[in-house]
Every structure is written in structure tokens, then in C-alpha cells.
């Protein structure tokens, strides 16, 4: 075989290469660096993430349309999002590990590899790369979920996620095997997305797609595969929970939408099935959260509901086929979701107790007297998640509703509005607890100097982020 004819295009994965080099450097240095200098490894990790972000934004190599002989696409807008999530989780990790935790630098190395895997997962154009990156992400995630390995909560969360992701990964894989077996093209192109639209007539392909969709629905925690979410969110360390809730879900959603775009018009039956799934997800997520008092479980249910809203957006896109506006709307929504969720998890992380797994809403009583910044952030971001104007969350939901209206999905719009109204109830219950009188049994807060400025910045962004819309829709 003529090896000189293969074009690798390593320039295109410069961001991922920077991330990989950073994590390898952290692991290697952690072995040789003396104990006192360990905290510089966190700084190195953060610098590596920042470097990757800069490379992503400023380095635009020229290349062909598809890279690595068709394995990756050029569109890498998810990278900036994922790296931002990783940086926020790192900041949270500083506060989390200062409360008592081990192996901070190795945690950072695994987090960076997870981010790299997520970026490649979303960028992939070929199911083989998608599967390998998917497994990389899930492996890193259940390693991180079990990181607090002296507490049974964290270990149980890790084991639950392990079993669930094992089953879903195997299902995803069988789906890929069937898609491969449909025989749409030859050799490496067999699994390329570009060839999918030709395959909808073959039953093997359709079964494969159903299985792949099942595997992906596990990842984004949609009904009927959502039952792992509250438990795993509760048990995992707080920075990992935030990463789960934002980055992992966003990666799953964007990959699912890319596959739906590649499939072309799918017909009424598939859209009906997706609509039912989206409706059930919204209902289960919102109604399940109403009775929750545990803070992290409540965020778990809230993330299930948000997966439902994003599924509504994907279905609307499948009907309207307006890809560019869809990408704008979905990125707007997930950035708004990221700002709000991360700020709330910053607040969650600043309570005492090494393990936040039993933190409940009643621990927040009297917060308004103890710390004004934390209360302010909590109120603003919970309002954003509930969809109260003028926060970014409101405009995100409005965009989804506009899409749904244009696609004439009135039932789904109704369910979404119903879900939002229900969500106002439980978010406001949380907010109200912050203004209640304390009863003396709450946990102490430990405001962390590394988290406060970022939290304030995230809250301000939540309020003003909607200004981006003016730029695009100014009359």
C-alpha cells in the first residue's frame, strides 16, 4: 500500500493534541514532582486548557473538507464549549478537593482526556471514531464519578453509571454493526455519515439506527433510559456532576442532531416516536423533581427535563430542515444552560461536608443573611433555569418554542410550557429556602475565593447573554 498517499492532517486536531499533551504531562509530572509543588500541576492543567482554547479560537489551518480520510469534520464549535466546561469544572475541583480529596492532579488529567474525547465525539464524521470517542468519554466519566472512593455514595454512583453505560455502549455497538452490515458503501466510508441517507430503505440499517438511537438516549438521559440520572448525579463529586449535567448532555444532543441531519427526512413514524420520547422526558423530569429535597437529585431531574426541551428542538429541526438556525438555537440554549447550571453547582459546592450527596434544600435556609453573593447567584440562575425573563434561560426556551411553532408541533409546545410552569414551582421552593429563617441545623457555608468571582461572572453573563440575540435578530 502506498503510504505516502495518506494525508493525516494532524493540524486539524491541534486543539485535541494540546489537551492530550497537557494530560500526559500532568500524569508524568505527578510522578516526579515533590509533594509541595503539587498544586502547580493544577495550574499547569488550567493553563493547558486555556492554551487549547486559544489554539481553537485562533489557529485556523487550511485543509480539505474532511480530514483523516473522512473521519472528522471541520466543524469544531463544540470544542470551545467543552473546554469552557472543563475549565469551570477545574475551578470547582479546586474548591472540592480543598474540602478533602485525593489525587487532585490525576483527576485533572482524566478530566482533560474526557474533554478531548467529547470534542472528538462531536466532531466525528464516521461511526467508528464516534464509538471510540464515546467509550473514552464514558470511561473517564465513570472513573471520575467514583473518584471519592472512600465514600460508598460515590462508588455506587460509579458502579451504576458503569453498568448503565456498559449496556448502552454495547447497544450502540450492535447498532453500528447493523449499520455496517447494511452495506451502503465500501471500506472506511461504510460508516460515514454522508452515506446514511441512502440507507433508510434497508431494514438492517433501520434496526441499526434504532439501536444507535437507544444508546445515545441513554447518554442524554431521555425516557425510558433516564433512571440512572438522579442517583449518579447525587453520588458523584460535585465538579463531576456539573460536567455530567452540562458537557456530557450537550455532546450527546449535538451528536444526535448531527446524525439526524445526516439521515435526511425520516418519515412520520420516527418523528412520532421522538415526539413521544421528548414529551415523556419533559414530564418525567419536571414531575419527578417536585418531590425532591436533595439538591443534587433535583438538578438531576432538571437535567432530564432540559434534555426533553432539546429533543423538542431536534424534532423541530427535523421537520423544518433549517440547519444553521438550529445550530444557533441549540448552542444558545446549551450556553445558557451551562451558565446557569455551573453557577448553581458553584453554590452547591461551597457548603461544608466533603460529600455533597446529602445536601438538601433545608440546608439553604438563612442563606440570604450569610452570604449575599451566593444568594444572588442562586436566585438569578435558578430563575434562568425556570425560564424567567430577562435571563438567558428564558430566551433559550423562547427560541425552542418559536421553532416548535414554526414546525407546527402544538402538543409538544403545550407540554413544554406545562413542564416549565411545574419547574417554576420547585426552583422557587429552592429559592425561597434561601430567604427563610435558619433553624440552626443547616450546614455551614465555606465560600471559596476561587469560586466567588467566577460565580458572580456567570450570574452576570446569565443576565446579559441574551444580548447576543440582538446582534442576530436586530430589526
Amino acid at each position, binding site marked *: 500500500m502506498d503510504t505516502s498517499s495518506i494525508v493525516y492532517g494532524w493540524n486539524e486536531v491541534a486543539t485535541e493534541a494540546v489537551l*492530550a499533551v497537557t494530560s500526559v504531562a500532568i500524569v508524568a509530572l505527578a510522578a516526579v514532582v515533590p509533594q509541595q509543588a503539587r498544586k502547580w500541576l493544577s495550574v499547569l492543567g488550567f493553563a493547558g486548557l486555556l492554551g487549547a482554547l486559544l489554539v481553537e479560537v485562533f489557529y485556523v489551518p487550511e485543509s480539505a473538507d474532511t480530514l483523516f480520510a473522512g473521519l472528522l469534520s471541520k466543524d469544531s464549535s463544540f470544542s470551545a464549549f467543552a473546554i469552557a466546561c472543563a475549565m469551570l469544572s477545574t475551578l470547582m475541583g479546586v474548591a472540592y*478537593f480543598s474540602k478533602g480529596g485525593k489525587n487532585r492532579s490525576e483527576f485533572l488529567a*482524566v478530566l482533560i482526556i474526557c474533554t478531548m474525547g467529547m470534542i472528538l465525539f462531536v466532531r466525528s464524521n464516521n461511526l467508528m471514531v464516534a464509538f471510540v470517542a464515546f467509550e*473514552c468519554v464514558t470511561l*473517564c466519566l465513570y472513573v471520575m464519578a467514583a473518584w471519592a472512593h472512600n465514600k460508598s455514595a460515590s462508588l455506587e454512583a460509579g458502579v451504576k453509571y458503569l453498568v448503565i453505560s456498559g449496556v448502552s455502549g454495547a447497544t450502540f455497538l450492535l447498532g453500528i454493526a447493523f449499520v455496517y452490515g447494511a452495506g451502503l458503501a465500501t471500506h472506511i466510508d461504510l460508516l460515514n455519515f454522508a452515506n446514511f441517507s441512502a440507507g433508510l430503505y434497508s*431494514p438492517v440499517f433501520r434496526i441499526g439506527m434504532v439501536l444507535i438511537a437507544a444508546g445515545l438516549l441513554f447518554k442524554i438521559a431521555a425516557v425510558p433510559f433516564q433512571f440512572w440520572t438522579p442517583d449518579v448525579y447525587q453520588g458523584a463529586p460535585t465538579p463531576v456532576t456539573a460536567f455530567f449535567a452540562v458537557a456530557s448532555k450537550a455532546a450527546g444532543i449535538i451528536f444526535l442532531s448531527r446524525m439526524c441531519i445526516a439521515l435526511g427526512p425520516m418519515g412520520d413514524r420516527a418523528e412520532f416516536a421522538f415526539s413521544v420520547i421528548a414529551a415523556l422526558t419533559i414530564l418525567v423530569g419536571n414531575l419527578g423533581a417536585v418531590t425532591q429535597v436533595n439538591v443534587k437529585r433535583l438538578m438531576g431531574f432538571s437535567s432530564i427535563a432540559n434534555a426533553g426541551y432539546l429533543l423538542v428542538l431536534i424534532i423541530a429541526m427535523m421537520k423544518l430542515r433549517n440547519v444553521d438556525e438550529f445550530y444557533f438555537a441549540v448552542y444558545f440554549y446549551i450556553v445558557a444552560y451551562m451558565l446557569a447550571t455551573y453557577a448553581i453547582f458553584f453554590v452547591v459546592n461551597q457548603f461544608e461536608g466533603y460529600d455533597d450527596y446529602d445536601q438538601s434544600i433545608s440546608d439553604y435556609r438563612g442563606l440570604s443573611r450569610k452570604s449575599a453573593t451566593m444568594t444572588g447567584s442562586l436566585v438569578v440562575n435558578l430563575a434562568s433555569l425556570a425560564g424567567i425573563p430577562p435571563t438567558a434561560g428564558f430566551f433559550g426556551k423562547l427560541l425552542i418554542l418559536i421553532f416548535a411553532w414554526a414546525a407546527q408541533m402544538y402538543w409538544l409546545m403545550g407540554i413544554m410550557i406545562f413542564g416549565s410552569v411545574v419547574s417554576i414551582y420547585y426552583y422557587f421552593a429552592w429559592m425561597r429556602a434561601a430567604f427563610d429563617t435558619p433553624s440552626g441545623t443547616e450546614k455551614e457555608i465555606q465560600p471559596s475565593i476561587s469560586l466567588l468571582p467566577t460565580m458572580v461572572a456567570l450570574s452576570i453573563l446569565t443576565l446579559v447573554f441574551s444580548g447576543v440575540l440582538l446582534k442576530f435578530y436586530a430589526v
Partner: protein
Amino acid sequence: METFLYYLFCAMCLCGGLGVIILRGYVNTAMSMLVSMLGVAGLMFLMQAYFVAILMVSVYAGAVLVLFIFVVMLMGDTTDGVNIWKKLALLALWVAAGCLVGWFAPEMVEGLRSSGPSAGTSVLAEAKNYGTALFTEFMLPFQIVGLLLLAAMVGVIAIAKPFTVRNRNNDMD
């Protein structure tokens, strides 16, 4: 001869799989999984994918199962405590699944583009093809798997280390 081998390996594969979910005791299930893996390797031999078959035996049966046995030995060979009715139900479900798969599989695969049995050796038979493919076209997933293994190693060591009390003077991070 080939038909006999096919039925033998198929039986090993399926009965081993059934044994994993029906048998009591860890070592029994691990051994039946070993039989199943050897059956799968045999089936791969029949498909002329010799390299993958040997890898299967050495990685799956040789490493993965040994790891399982190690862990099982650490925990003590306890029984599952599942009653006989549940096992019969599982067996019945298994037979039903077998009928389903046997019924639907031929319908699914009819009409697939197929070149028929190839004249010479299959392209999967030679190890050289794997090497060429891995280093030319599939370089990117190869590198990702390398980093995945790094993350797995770091994770295993971080999780399995004893969790010592954090000493203030000795900032063991």
C-alpha cells in the same frame, strides 16, 4: 468437517453464555464464560479471521477472565441466592430469545450486498492488513484508544489506592 466444527463452536458459545446467567457461584460463571469465549474464538477461526481469533483468546480469555477470577478470589466464592423458579424463567426467556433471533435474522439479512464466499483467503486473515489499516486509515481512533488506556490506568490506580487520612504537614495531593 467444517459443519461439525461450526455446530461445536456454536454450542460452546451459546451454552457458555447461558451458563453465565444460570449457574451459581462465581467460579462456575467465570468458567462458563471462558467456554463461551473459546467458542467465539472458534467461530472467528471459521470466518478466516485468524488474527482476531488469537487476539480474542489472549485478550479476552487470557486477560479479562483472569482479572475476573482474581477479583472473585478476593471476594470469596459466594452463591447468588437465586431460586430455581427465576432460573427456569430465565431459561425459558433465553429459549424464546433464541427462537426470535432465529426467526428474524434471515429476513433481516436477505438482499444485502454480498460478494459471496471469496475465492482466495479473506482480507481479514492476514495480520499485515491490520497493521497497514491501523497505521494509515485508522490512525486517529488508534491514538484516541491510546489516550483512553492512559485514562483507564490513571483511574484504576486512583480508585484502588487506599484512602489515607490527609495529613496537613504532608500535602499529599
